[in-house]
């Protein structure tokens, strides 16, 4: 019980504060038996570390307390002299605690024990929960319960806003003294902030300890720091009118335009539902069988019956509760079913329909048989059901069968069950996403919500810098940097009560305000999403999820088309190879198609050679079926019988998901013999590849697959004529293959609309370097570079950016003044660089020569050694550049370097050697001044140790100590109490200190 917890906390506080001296700063980690002790151990080292980094001194003590009542709150940390107790402190929080609370005396409200947040978890029994479920989901009752709360919000505006303001800044306005905390209580600031003083805790505990049923009266107070924008238990947005009344934009910490985007999202979701409803009723019309519709509704009843009363009420909720959608759903039925019924001469009996509709089909393929089977297939994890449903129909029926399957799957998940999706991409996993997922799993099980909310892992969504990400569907609210401890609160507040927790929302770095919806976050807003559109809906391991978003419909459509029609569509789409060379995809396909050979191959190039290209592995891991579908369509178009999906062994998750996808596709009859009952046979092997840069080159890739060392082959013959084992082979990049389904489904013209004049569609780019949102994003071709870097990427983390390197490590540099260049093949080439998926942002203090040299070193290590010009030339170029950066060069070296680069470019067989010299030439062309300066012994970039000194301007230095924290070699000392100084003999000229100094006190010359 939380009252017990509060008393236990108070007692612990009292006992500890009485022993420990109150005046000097101290961090006390409370330990007791079990997990707390283990946590205390980790925390202890983390605190020591952080203190050292922040150059602060404070006592760190581990005290044993009686923690029998505090389970679930460990680790508990108390701070002096602030006299504040933090619970559930993670290692990540330590820095913040040290910096905010210890240094500045500010309370971090999210770490303070909040009796309100955890109250229902302790209090509600299962019966009560059931009662709650029944009460809240019984039709309009939910709306009425919530309305007064929502209405009351504007009425309280002054106080309301005030309290929000103070909350927004992580409690920064809250004074720590007990005296100041008391008015705060009157001003409805319950919970967290108050626990600064023990007596107040007791007072607080009395207020919210009323039973959950009467919680309505207390609700407005409880939710002050929360935004009640969702319908409880559905994760759906309230009606726009209610949202309007919330006056979100008056709340100082919420981004302007939020109400607008909420409304837009609401309407979008409504349209989505209506479309789905149309699909469901539409399939009925195609097979005019009233029983079909009944199957769906029967499904609901079955769903209701088979579950406990609590679940039943939730299950039926979308049918009765969302009154806006359902009239439409039902309205669609008679309209669309009407003409179809006429067409089928109003046939209602099942036996009559096949005779009318499908004269050619045999009895087994009759739709009458399909209907029960598709209902059986509704469990999207049931592969045999899916396979059965697909096998039953003949080729001409495949579209309809897939549509129907889709509608069944859709009605299973999107209309009914709210979802919490945790991003389990590699980036998020590295930051603890799996722990978050497990915490959700545990909490959902704990509350017995397994049926009412679906928990799902999805692939990487690009915003890795903000991970772990948690998305709430269907409202599309994105929580960032979620910790396992937040799972409880998200379930309690957001799912059960419909309140959004602002502290977990994305904060716009420009305005400092919070953004509610995923689509309103600039990172996503500025993207054009075709390939990544459905990532938040798809569990990569589930083929059902992919089918539910319309997956494999393009394949079914393609199988009914002649192959030249498919290639025509691709020509119309102006799709070009996304690997970088930009060769028109259709031409390649056409050449391969026209080859006469019994055996042809198609290959997915998933080598993603360029360092930093996160996009290809991420897409393979997030939506493997999309690539597979594209591959099957391609194989059909060129009549290939075997496909290879080449994945580097280093991309473990991509490999795992691709293998699973291929396996599932075989089980569902989407691969193998007679795909979707056509005469087309196709087999796919997921090929494990070694980690090698050169294998990204088309012909080297073929050698690698054949089991040789991966050297390039001379071209011509091109692989499309003679590739794997001498047979015609179609090699395309991951992104190219992934674009195919959308083109076939919507038509080439549709796809071409999105791109630039010469190349259609979208591509994925990886953003690396010191930008605010590193990760990968989908942009349409022809997006200005500045939009990608400053808009999507969020601009530089510190200071300014000098240039952006496109086309991987061997690409050219685009200086900031040229960032209006459009991201497209031709324009980038004109700007003297390459099209490629990696955009590396270089900070202001980057020495272009130094970086070019590093790129060359990397290329040298990866070169295959076949061409002597590349094998010998690159090390020689590196040597010349070493002379330059070490201040040993003369003008002749530059001439030699240029000559050498030209030779290597002209005499290397593959792109690797050519690009290596290109990067040298490009840097000489774009930054001739830097080379000149180096000849004079100056390095404008500030990386060359012999030419540059980093210094501290004593006039400006405020001794904040940030530079000392980042210096990797501890070369920064305290000149006196007010100033810092840099010791040149230790400094390695990395420039980190320059980048973090807010006072611009560090300079180099």
């Amino acid at each position: 019980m939380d009252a017990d917890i509060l008393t236990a906390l108070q007692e612990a506080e009292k006992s500890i504060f009485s022993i420990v001296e109150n005046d000097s700063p101290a961090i006390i980690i409370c330990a007791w038996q079990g997990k707390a002790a283990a946590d205390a151990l980790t925390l202890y080292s983390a605190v020591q570390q952080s203190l050292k980094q922040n150059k602060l001194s404070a006592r760190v003590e581990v005290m044993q307390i009686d923690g029998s009542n505090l389970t679930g709150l460990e680790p508990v940390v108390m701070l002096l002299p602030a006299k504040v107790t933090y619970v559930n402190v993670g290692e990540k929080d330590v820095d913040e605690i040290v910096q905010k609370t210890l240094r500045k005396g500010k309370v971090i409200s999210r770490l303070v024990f909040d009796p309100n947040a955890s109250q229902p978890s302790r209090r509600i029994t299962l019966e009560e929960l059931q009662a709650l479920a029944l009460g809240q989901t019984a039709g309009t009752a939910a709306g009425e319960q919530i309305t007064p709360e929502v209405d009351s919000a504007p009425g309280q505006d002054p106080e309301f806003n005030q309290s929000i303001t103070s909350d927004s800044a992580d409690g920064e306005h809250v004074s720590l003294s007990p005296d100041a905390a008391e008015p705060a209580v009157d001003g409805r600031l319950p919970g967290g902030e108050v626990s600064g003083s023990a007596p107040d805790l007791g007072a607080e505990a009395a207020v919210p300890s009323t039973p959950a049923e009467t919680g309505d009266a207390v609700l407005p107070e409880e939710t002050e720091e929360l935004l009640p924008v969702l319908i409880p238990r559905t994760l759906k947005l309230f009606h726009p009118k209610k949202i309007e009344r919330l006056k979100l934009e008056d709340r100082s910490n919420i981004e302007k335009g939020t109400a607008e985007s909420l409304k837009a999202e609401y309407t979008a979701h409504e349209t989505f539902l209506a479309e789905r409803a149309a699909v469901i009723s539409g399939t009925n019309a195609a097979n005019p069988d009233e029983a079909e519709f009944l199957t769906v509704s029967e499904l609901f009843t079955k769903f209701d019956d088979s579950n406990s009363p609590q679940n039943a009420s939730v299950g039926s909720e979308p049918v009765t509760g969302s009154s806006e959608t359902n009239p439409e759903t039902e309205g669609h039925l008679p309209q669309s079913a009407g003409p179809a019924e006429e067409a089928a001469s109003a046939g209602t009996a099942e036996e009559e329909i096949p005779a009318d509709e499908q004269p050619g089909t045999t009895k087994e393929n009759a739709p009458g048989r399909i209907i029960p089977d598709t209902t059986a297939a509704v469990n999207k994890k049931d592969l045999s059901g899916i396979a059965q449903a697909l096998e039953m129909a003949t080729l001409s029926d495949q579209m309809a069968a897939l549509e129907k399957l889709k509608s069944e799957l859709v009605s299973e998940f999107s209309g009914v069950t709210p979802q919490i999706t945790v991003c389990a991409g590699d980036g998020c996993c590295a930051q603890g996403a799996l722990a978050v997922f497990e915490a959700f799993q545990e909490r959902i099980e704990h509350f017995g919500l397994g049926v009412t909310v679906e928990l799902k892992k999805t692939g990487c969504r690009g915003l890795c810098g903000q991970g772990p990400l948690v998305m709430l569907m269907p409202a599309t609210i994105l929580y960032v940097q979620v910790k396992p401890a937040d799972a409880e609160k998200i379930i309690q507040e957001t799912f059960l009560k419909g309140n959004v927790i602002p502290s977990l929302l994305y904060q716009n770095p420009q305005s400092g305000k919070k953004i509610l919806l995923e689509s309103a976050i600039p990172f996503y807003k500025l993207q054009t999403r075709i390939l990544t559109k459905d990532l938040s809906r798809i569990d990569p391991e589930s083929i059902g999820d992919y089918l539910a978003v319309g997956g494999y419909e393009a394949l079914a459509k393609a199988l009914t088309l002649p192959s030249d029609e498919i290639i025509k569509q691709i020509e119309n789409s102006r799709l070009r190879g996304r690997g970088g060379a930009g060769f028109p995809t259709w031409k390649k396909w056409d050449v391969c198609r026209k080859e006469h050979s019994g055996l042809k191959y198609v290959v997915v190039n998933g080598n993603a050679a360029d360092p930093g290209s996160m996009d290809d592995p991420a897409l393979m891991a997030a939506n493997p079926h999309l690539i597979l579908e594209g591959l099957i369509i391609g194989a059909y178009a060129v009549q290939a019988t075997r496909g290879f999906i080449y994945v580097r062994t280093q991309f473990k998750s991509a490999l795992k998901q691709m293998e699973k996808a291929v396996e599932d596709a075989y089980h569902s009859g989407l691969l193998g013999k007679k795909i979707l009952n056509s005469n087309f046979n196709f087999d796919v092997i997921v090929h494990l590849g070694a980690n090698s840069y050169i294998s990204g080159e088309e012909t080297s890739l073929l050698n690698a697959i054949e089991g040789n060392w991966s050297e390039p082959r001379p071209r011509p013959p091109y692989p499309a004529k003679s590739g794997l084992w001498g047979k015609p082979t179609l090699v395309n990049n991951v992104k190219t293959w992934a674009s195919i389904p959308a083109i076939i489904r919507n038509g080439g013209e549709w796809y071409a609309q999105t791109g630039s004049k010469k190349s259609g569609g979208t591509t994925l780019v990886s953003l690396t370097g010191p930008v605010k949102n590193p990760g990968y994003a989908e942009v349409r071709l022809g997006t200005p570079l500045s939009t990608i870097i400053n808009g999507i990427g969020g601009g530089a983390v510190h200071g300014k950016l000098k240039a952006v390197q496109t086309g991987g490590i061997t690409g050219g540099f685009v200086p900031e003044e040229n960032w209006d260049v459009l991201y497209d093949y031709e324009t980038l080439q004109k700007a003297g660089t390459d099209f490629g998926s990696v955009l590396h942002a270089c900070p202001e203090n980057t020495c272009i020569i130094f970086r070019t040299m590093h790129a060359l070193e990397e290329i040298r290590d990866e070169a295959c050694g076949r061409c002597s010009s590349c094998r010998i030339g690159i090390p020689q170029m590196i040597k010349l550049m070493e002379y330059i950066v070490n201040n040993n060069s003369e003008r002749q070296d530059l001439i030699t370097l240029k000559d050498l680069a030209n030779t290597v470019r002209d005499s290397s067989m593959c792109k690797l050697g050519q690009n290596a010299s290109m990067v040298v030439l490009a840097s000489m062309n774009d930054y001739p001044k830097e080379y000149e300066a180096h000849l004079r012994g100056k390095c404008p970039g500030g990386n060359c140790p012999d030419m540059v000194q980093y210094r501290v301007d004593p006039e400006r230095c405020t001794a904040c100590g940030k530079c000392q924290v980042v210096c990797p070699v501890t070369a920064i000392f305290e000149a006196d109490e007010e100033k810092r100084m840099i010791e040149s003999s230790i400094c390695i000229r990395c420039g980190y200190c320059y980048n973090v100094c807010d006072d611009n006190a560090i300079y180099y010359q």
Partner: protein
Amino acid sequence: MNVNLNNVDDIIRSYGKNPGGLIPVLLKIEELYGYISEEALSEVSDKLSVPPLRLKKIISFYNTFSFTPKARNVIRVCQGCNCSSGGGQLTAAKISEFLNIKPGETSPDESFTLELVPCQRLCAVGPVVIINDKVYSHSTADKIQQLLSEYDSSEL
């Protein structure tokens, strides 16, 4: 080194029959044992009828493979351009100094192997250090050193 060749046979059975199955077989053996042993090499050579010398040539071409066994704990420090310029280089140097082994080497008590690896595509959360498949994001030399000193010679 006692090498259980049953596993090698299993791998050859499941991957070797595919066209172009040679490199996947070798990669799987590398993944399982941490290196390509002489025994495994001759087994592959026999079963897939590839001359041993050719196998060695292929293996030495790709830097994914190694001929020497690795320690229980493998520390991989990403040297991709983002991680290395973000401090990864220094981290590697510090670990190297701390464990008193050079990159690519195994410590004398066979508890750690230090490897420098190319870009792991985790640039967004870098610099990364991967210890036995567990990724440590935003790592610094100090953090990893602390981690290693706490778990020195015990299982990570």
